[in-house]
């Protein structure tokens, strides 16, 4: 075991980033024209990084597996983006955003990175408005805010329930401007299948053209991985169907350490699953918890009647409802952080109070918000304050204007009107806080190889707060990486173009080709999805919302067996040199089958509960997570050594100098 150096600059927390920027080496504009950078992924992190690096003058080569950069899954983010603007005058500040993020992450993230994130958060909003992102505004024409879980201020900027879409289209438009100028060479429908290391530095990638099947070599002076998280290791998640860990896992196998793989976010408010054929889960934004109240019945006879269909939720009297979040966490109520809300839902459902047939659903109820808003509107418009139908109608209008698209989505999927009946929701895998280990510069353990956005591990500790993923993606891409990568590239001004005609590229390409050939020629008896679903079940049952030693040990051996079976019996129809979606999936699932094992191993070695990592052995009497700061106040970073079981453990000690580490309480 070695100790990792995060490279955090000296000095006061609040001056670190400024002093760092003042002291780094720069590349002059003429030299930038001679330097190439590869960016893999076009979500908020990859899209914003590509655009900014191209504006600075670098030649950028960007890759995405979708048919257009605009499709990256950041587009599906709903609720909002945090920024410490304090437009509401409710006491927000850079420090408070920093504090909330560290506490929300259960004291398992790196202070300096988080402070920098909070610091640049305000620039993001300015930037996006300048780009023409249509954020929600109030009647005075100024920007509106809402609240998210785990905080006591309103600092979340939003565009209805489509904030991610609007921000991503902003980054996409900035990219388009550079594509038109020829500064970004865009490779759509390409998948990165390996990173090429020359003389210890990342110098290129091997990519497959997903239309022709051609295996291509692309070189650059630095490589940036912005390929998102690995939530699809669970098969069912709120990730896009194509979201995958392949780029991240391939760089891990080439020397980049993988940090905290067991930190996964299970989001409390998703539409419950309906059957075996289910292909993915749909999120209902956390913003709904601003106005929605979560409950289950207090009485078991009501639960039974609900399941039999003889009772409706709206018929259950107020005193027979258990608003369990408000009961357990009076200070934060329905706006506790995601890990807390998810565990609480699981606790009620495990106790038998789940409100649908599967027993895995709780209610998210808007009736009191509808009444509250309705009364306000009736008064504002001088109507009869005792007209309950009018109050309801006007209240529904307000709720529609705030969350209309989410309600419509719910109605289409569940076939029930959420304005009249409470929504049914249940936790689902949503985000992965773990990822490729990076230092303060966002550089991995391989020189010249960077990881940004959800793909890295850096800012959210063991639990991410709502509306912080968009913030981190754009902060990394617009405002952090463009500086830090320059410091590295300043040593490359004399290097000249990187040739792809070298043994390193050849070796990488052949390895990739062999692997694909093996998959296509295997001609086994089970489809790729067969394996993916099995893996997902193991992960959900044994590495899900709560974990224990026995289960994790079982998971490790079951995943090992499944992986061996996959390589023996997987069936990939179609050929190599054509559009072959099964082949694409097969490669991704092969990587998930390795990552899953490392995930379980990481969870097994972390003998404490923190954030999204809940070990049943380490809980308080009330069922809250019990951290062990003496023994586990560190980042676990794993070095690839062949099989996941052989992975070598490294530690980055976490220092908290500007924040008091205490028990995280939302009571």
């Amino acid at each position, binding site marked *: 075991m070695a100790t990792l150096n995060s490279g955090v600059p000296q000095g006061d927390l609040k001056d670190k980033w400024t002093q760092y920027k003042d002291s780094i080496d720069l590349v002059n504009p003429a030299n930038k024209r001679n330097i190439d950078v590869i960016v893999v992924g076009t979500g908020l992190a990859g899209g914003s990084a590509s655009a900014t690096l191209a504006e600075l003058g670098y030649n950028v080569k960007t890759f995405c597996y*979708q048919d257009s950069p605009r499709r990256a899954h950041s587009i599906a983010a709903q609720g909002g983006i945090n920024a410490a603007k304090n437009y509401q005058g409710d006491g927000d500040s850079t420090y408070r955003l920093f504090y909330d993020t560290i506490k929300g992450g259960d004291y398992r993230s790196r202070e300096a990175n988080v402070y920098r994130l909070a610091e640049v958060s305000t620039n993001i909003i300015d930037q996006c*408005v300048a780009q*023409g992102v249509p954020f929600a*505004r109030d009647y005075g024409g100024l920007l509106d805010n809402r609240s998210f879980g785990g905080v006591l201020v309103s600092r979340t900027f939003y565009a209805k329930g489509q904030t991610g*879409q609007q921000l991503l289209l902003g980054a996409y438009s900035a990219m388009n*401007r550079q594509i038109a100028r020829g500064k970004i060479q865009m490779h759509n429908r390409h998948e990165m299948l390996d990173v090429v290391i020359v003389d210890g530095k990342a110098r290129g990638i091997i990519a497959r053209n997903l239309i022709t099947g051609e295996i291509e070599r692309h070189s650059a002076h630095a490589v940036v991985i912005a390929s998102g998280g690995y939530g699809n290791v669970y098969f069912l998640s709120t990730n896009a169907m194509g979201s995958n860990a392949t780029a991240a896992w391939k760089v891990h196998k080439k020397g980049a350490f993988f940090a905290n793989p067991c930190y996964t976010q299970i989001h409390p408010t998703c539409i419950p699953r309906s059957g075996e054929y289910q292909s993915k889960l749909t999120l209902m934004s956390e913003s709904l918890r601003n106005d929605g109240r979560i409950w289950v019945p207090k009485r078991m006879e009501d639960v039974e009647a609900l399941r039999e269909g003889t009772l409706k939720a709206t018929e259950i009297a107020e005193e027979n409802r258990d608003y369990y979040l408000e009961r357990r966490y009076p200070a934060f109520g329905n706006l506790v952080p995601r890990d807390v809300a998810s565990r609480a839902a699981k606790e009620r459902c495990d106790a038998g109070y789940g409100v649908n047939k599967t027993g895995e659903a709780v209610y998210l109820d808007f009736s009191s918000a509808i009444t509250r808003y309705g009364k306000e509107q009736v008064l504002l418009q001088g109507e009869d304050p005792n007209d309950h139908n009018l109050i309801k109608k006007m209240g529904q209008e307000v709720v529609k204007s705030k969350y209309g698209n989410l309600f419509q989505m719910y109605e289409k999927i569940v076939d029930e009107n959420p304005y009249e009946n409470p929504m049914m929701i249940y936790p689902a895998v949503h985000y992965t806080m773990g990822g490729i280990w990076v230092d303060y510069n966002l550089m991995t353990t391989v020189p010249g190889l960077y990881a940004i956005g959800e793909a890295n591990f850096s800012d959210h500790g063991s639990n991410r707060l709502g509306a912080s993923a968009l913030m981190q993606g754009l902060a990394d891409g617009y405002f952090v990486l463009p500086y830090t990568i320059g410091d590295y590239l300043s040593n490359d001004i004399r290097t000249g173009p990187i040739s792809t005609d070298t043994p390193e590229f050849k070796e990488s390409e052949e390895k990739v080709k062999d692997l694909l050939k093996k998959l296509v020629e295997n001609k086994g008896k089970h*489809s790729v999805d067969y394996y993916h679903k099995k893996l997902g079940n193991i992960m959900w049952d044994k590495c899900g919302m709560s974990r224990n030693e026995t289960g994790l040990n079982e998971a490790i051996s079951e995943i090992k067996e499944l992986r061996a079976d996959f390589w023996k019996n997987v069936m990939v129809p179609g050929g190599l040199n054509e559009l072959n*979606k099964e082949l694409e999936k097969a490669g991704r699932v092969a990587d998930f089958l390795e990552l899953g094992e490392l995930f379980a191993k990481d969870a097994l070695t972390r003998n404490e509960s923190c954030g999204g990592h809940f070990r049943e052995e380490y809980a308080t009497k009330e069922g809250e997570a019990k951290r062990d700061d003496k023994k586990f106040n560190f980042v676990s970073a794993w070095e690839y050594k062949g099989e996941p079981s052989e992975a070598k453990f490294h530690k980055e000690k976490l220092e908290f100098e500007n924040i008091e580490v205490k028990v995280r309480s939302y009571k």
Partner: protein
Amino acid sequence: MNLTLKIWRQKSNTDKGSLETYPISDVSEDMSFLEMLDVLNEELIEKEIEPVAFDHDCREGICGMCSLYINGEAHGPDRRVTTCQLHMRKFNDGDTIFIEPFRANSFPVVKDLVVDRSSFDRIQQAGGYVSVNTSGNTQDANSIPIPKDDADTAFDAATCIGCGACVASCKNSSAMLFVSAKVSQFSLLPQGQVEAKERVINMVNKMDEEGFGNCTNTGACEVECPKGISLDNISRMNREFITANVKK
């Protein structure tokens, strides 16, 4: 329920392609349309038949990657949804369902139901942006108040997901709804005003160059648009385009 699927199969861009028939049974009405195709593909793989290729990604109706022309309608019979959000409860036991790719000269078929919509990207590259660098040194976000109505209308236009249903539904394969949505978003916001004239001219010219047809106001695009992008945007773009040309 039991269904008969007539699906367009086409090996590659150069292949001719044809409709093939596939029966499918025990379809649950709670399945999404794409989950039904997943089930079909699993069955095909088991029979060692190559599965049907179709584009899809987020399956939440927002990424715009899924397409499909189902029983003669882009994204199928339901309104205000993409194919991934279309559910089988919209169909009946015994139905025959025709599934084809989005058809337009500017959307060539890649394979089976997958088409190439990169022409949309090229139109955006011609001017679908505000020319501001991402330096972060812009003015404070609240320095220019924007009337709520303008901001909301700009937002409504900006919710276009770029799926191409408008083009597939139009008898002229016109991309006017798509292009006008972007033009409107920026022309309604002060940040987009500065280069509004060049933008509309460049984007419209690019649209023509890419081979999209003209608009004859049938309104089919608005009906089939999964995001309900309004025809008003086309009027707004026409106004912008004419003014820009007059003032040039």
